[in-house]
């Protein structure tokens, strides 16, 4: 049995289209989105019909919670005024361009999804099982912390997103934590592709594969420009380097980037 997981669409409906096609080709039975549908990119309302049409199951991200509940910001918790400035531009843009019907839909999304398959308990969340906007970076998350989360929340396989970088860790007793990455923007490594996660379940094996995904990033960049979204964001799409909101990155993740 094959499933596809992705997070952080950030209005990037072009990457979403591409992920749906790619995963269908690989024989995926069900698609899951772990939240943050808006932010960053153009034309928020183009994402929703795709999710609907392909019956994607969706967990609520902090962004979705904010937009759905008419909050004033995205709850990313930036403290640098420059980061806040850019975050606010895309937040207000996304809020204005998301129809009231879609906003109402975002408000009702569940904060976690659970299911059991072949005796494995799956827990799908946005940040961490205990908190929607908790950053779980590979270099700042101890293995025993993840193990305790898994035990406390009664899960064998935890899947989350929120940071924008994919990674995974095997825990003891066959448990796993998987950060599925995001479709919305590249991973700050100078390549333009984005990532999603393919999970294959067979007998008692859970195999995880991270899939690099090409999409029409030139077109996305053009649409961002014509929507007058910040040039800094466009640059990220065109170069693969993050240009803003870098303060939340741990030193180790930060220094492999360009800025």
């Amino acid at each position: 049995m094959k499933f596809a997981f992705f997070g952080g669409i950030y209005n990037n409906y072009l990457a979403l289209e591409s992920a749906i096609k790619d995963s269908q080709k690989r024989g995926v039975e069900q698609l899951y989105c772990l939240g943050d549908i808006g932010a960053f990119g153009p034309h928020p309302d183009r994402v929703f019909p795709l999710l609907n049409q392909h019956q994607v199951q969706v967990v609520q991200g902090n962004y979705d919670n904010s937009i759905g509940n008419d909050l004033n910001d995205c709850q990313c918790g930036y403290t640098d005024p420059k980061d806040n400035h850019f975050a606010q531009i895309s937040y207000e843009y996304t809020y204005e361009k998301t129809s009231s019907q879609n906003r109402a839909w975002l408000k009702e999304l569940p904060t976690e999804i659970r299911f059991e398959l072949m005796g494995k308990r799956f827990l799908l969340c946005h940040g961490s099982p205990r908190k929607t906007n908790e950053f779980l970076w590979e270099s700042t998350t101890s293995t025993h912390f993840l193990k305790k989360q898994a035990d406390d929340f009664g899960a064998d396989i935890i899947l989350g997103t929120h940071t924008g970088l994919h990674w995974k860790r095997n825990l003891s007793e066959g448990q796993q934590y998987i950060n599925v990455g995001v479709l919305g923007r590249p991973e700050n490594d100078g390549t333009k592709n984005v990532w999603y996660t393919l999970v294959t379940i067979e007998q008692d094996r859970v195999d995880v594969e991270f899939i690099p995904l090409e999409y029409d990033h030139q077109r996305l960049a053009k649409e961002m420009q014509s929507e007058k979204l910040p040039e800094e964001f466009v640059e990220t799409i065109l170069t693969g380097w993050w240009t803003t909101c870098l303060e939340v990155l741990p030193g180790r993740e930060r220094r492999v980037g360009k800025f």
Partner: protein
Amino acid sequence: MSVAFQNSPHVALQALDELWFQVSGTLCNLECTHCFISCSPNNDSFGFLSLETVCRSLEESVRLGVKEYYFTGGEPFLNKEMVPILEETLQYGPATVLTNGTVLKDEWLKRLRDAEDRSGYTLEFRVSIDGPTPEINDPIRGERTFERAMIGVEKLVKAGFLPIITMTRTWSDEEDQRVLSEFQRVLAKHGNDRPRLKILPRLKIGAEAERSEGYNQTERVTKEMMVDYDESQLVCSHSRIVSDRGVHVCPILLEAPDSLLGDSLAESLLPFSLNHGACFTCYLYGSICTNPSSSKKE
């Protein structure tokens, strides 16, 4: 006891996310005027932690699911075992050291960079420098300390680390932006072109209480103030600190006798009553001790 004390709210430990180590006790090569635990070259009221003591707590922390480890003093690098302590810690999880940057050695940093590479976890250095110029910094931290700390920053950058510079605010809040921009320019000149800066509020205890006015009796957290307040903003709701005397509630109140909660982590998991003036600053400014990458703002 004042009325305010009886009305102090209790804060429970939600989860032990950050475990701190008072690794050099109250010993420091500097003697800053605003130091909130009055550290100095001859204040040995708290002593060095041994590698063995640290290891015992690291081992105990596994069961409690600690996410990150923090090291402070005093100046951590006065502890002769500091490098092995960090090497060991990086086997367990991510580590952050709060240093004044004035005693760092290239050979230590090289070893630590290797240990970081082996571990997969991040090793963060938070260097305290109290302003972008010697004129602002040196009267607080001591003669030539600006220059010496900047040499420390250069060494860290050379070893491949991206230090976080923390400064205690001795200017008005409105001036923050100007100070930050100036600091960015200065750091770039010292080879740190990707500065990570963090401004901390002043805590009016320790040496700072003698320098300024200390807290008055109305500056206390009350039960009423906790209604609708996000407790996770407070360090004591997700941290504890190990000293050579035992385990205390938080790094800030180390010297207060009631901050000592027990000998082991297991004994330190009780709720704490916020009856100190410093609690009032925590309340107003939120999580002042953790790194931005670990923040979990509500």
